[in-house]
């Protein structure tokens, strides 16, 4: 994966839990442009391991002068977002991947409806700039618990087609009202908690929307969990996965060769065959089908964990 060594040009506190980071080329060179909904993977070296988290880009896709991301501090996470919040400061060097996109707009749509819940607003911040540039009709709905937590408000333009729903103020988002009556050719995109994504899927199915018009991204950092061991079939080596480490990170630290891209269980690149499983795989990805999960013969190491006595991977 191609990497870029950039400089942290700005850090800004957007809300009590969310910080915005701007990265620029140290020589001022122009960076590759991207498309709305793209993300990049940030490397966070700590001790002898490198943690990598993916974050949606929130800046203008056509502006190569810098990349911006917004990171929500997850105190119960593995430590990636805490690293970003406590260890990264203006002037630091930082290594990131080139942008890639698993949540692009379908430009055949006649209208786009964007629905973001909480920090799930981030991919839409770049998408709406693309939609403005291409002069495509869209409406954006941003739901947050309180105005204080709604970091996205400061990053959103004020316009009649941008709607903010603050549940604490009694303005809960009404998906039925938003989705019913949209013109033929509308596509809907949802990013946020699983509950929001499944509520949009349920509502659109009830209204008879084609499945191909419904898009979502549940992009989350890997959850921590109980430590476990995994056996690499080719070498017979046992790798220990610590509580605050993902299986992918543990394999990388043990120099086991494995491909990856999104590190959020969405792209399918790290899909690995399981050759022995005595226990239960804790699937946390959005890639495998329900049947594949139940069969326990496949695992997505970027997100999923294991509880049991023996897990052997075809690596």
């Amino acid at each position, binding site marked *: 994966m191609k990497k870029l060594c950039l400089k942290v040009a700005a850090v800004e506190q957007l809300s009590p839990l969310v910080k915005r980071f701007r990265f620029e080329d140290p020589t001022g060179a122009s960076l590759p442009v991207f498309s709305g909904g793209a993300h990049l993977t940030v490397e966070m070296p700590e001790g002898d391991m490198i943690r990598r988290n993916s974050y949606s880009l929130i800046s203008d896709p056509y502006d190569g002068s810098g990349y911006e991301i917004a990171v929500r501090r997850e105190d119960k996470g593995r430590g990636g977002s805490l690293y970003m919040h406590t260890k990264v400061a203006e002037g630091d060097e930082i290594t990131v991947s080139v942008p890639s996109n698993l949540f692009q707009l379908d430009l055949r749509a*006649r209208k786009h409806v964007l629905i973001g819940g909480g920090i799930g607003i981030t991919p839409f911040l770049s998408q709406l700039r693309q939609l403005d540039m291409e002069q495509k009709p869209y409406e954006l709905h941003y739901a947050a618990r309180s105005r204080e937590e709604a970091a996205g408000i400061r990053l959103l333009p004020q316009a009649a087609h941008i709607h903010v729903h603050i549940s604490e103020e009694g303005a809960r988002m009404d998906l039925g009202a938003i989705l019913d009556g949209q*013109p*033929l*050719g509308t596509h809907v995109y949802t990013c946020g908690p699983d509950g929001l994504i499944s509520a949009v899927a349920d509502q659109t199915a009830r209204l*008879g929307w*084609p499945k*191909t018009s419904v898009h979502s991204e549940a992009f989350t950092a890997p959850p921590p969990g109980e430590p476990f061991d995994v056996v690499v079939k080719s070498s017979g080596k046992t790798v220990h996965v610590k509580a605050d480490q993902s299986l992918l990170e543990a394999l990388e630290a043990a120099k086991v060769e494995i491909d990856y891209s999104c590190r959020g269980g969405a792209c399918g690149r790290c899909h690995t065959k399981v050759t022995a499983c005595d226990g239960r795989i804790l699937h946390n990805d959005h890639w495998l089908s329900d049947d594949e999960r139940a069969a326990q013969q496949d695992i997505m190491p970027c997100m999923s964990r294991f509880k049991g006595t023996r897990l052997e991977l075809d690596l």
Partner: protein
Amino acid sequence: MPKTEFSPSIDSRPTYAGLVSQGAAPAIMVADEAGAQALSDLAASDASVMDHAHVVLVGCGASALGDVTPTALHEAPDFDAATPLVTQLLNTARMGTQIYLAGSEGLIGHVSALAFAAGMPVDEIQMEHRGSIARRMQCVHCKGITEDVTTDPFTCAHCGLTLFVRDHFSRRLGVFQGVCVDAETPGVVPEVVEIQA
């Protein structure tokens, strides 16, 4: 006339699975005379499918539908007359509207291209072939469209080239592609045969 079974071909060649009721959802239905029978059969399988249906009949009268009574019934003498009406229905339709097309390949191709342009995924359009297997062909050289082509090769109605009938189909235009059959050997043209299903 029963629904047509076509012989297997390349992936781009459309197949028509037959109309299946999607219930009492808003619907736009377009059929020619042979296709009107498929709409009657559809209504017989589930009467509620006509509860919110706009039916456009091309080249035939309401009697072709039998005793089926949709919400609205429109008649047009040909495609050209039907196009503004179908386009208007598509442009004012909402998400969840179902589209049912029945009749010749020309009708299905023409209207599915209008629906595709209105943002309807082609896979979500209900289609059933009835009647003539004549094709709507585009000349890949002059881009002119010749309707009701029943032989292979045929003469382009616009530029006069002799065109080979391909199974290669454009979903954007709703037409099969016709390619000059004697470009390498001018005047040497294969024997003309009837198009088969």
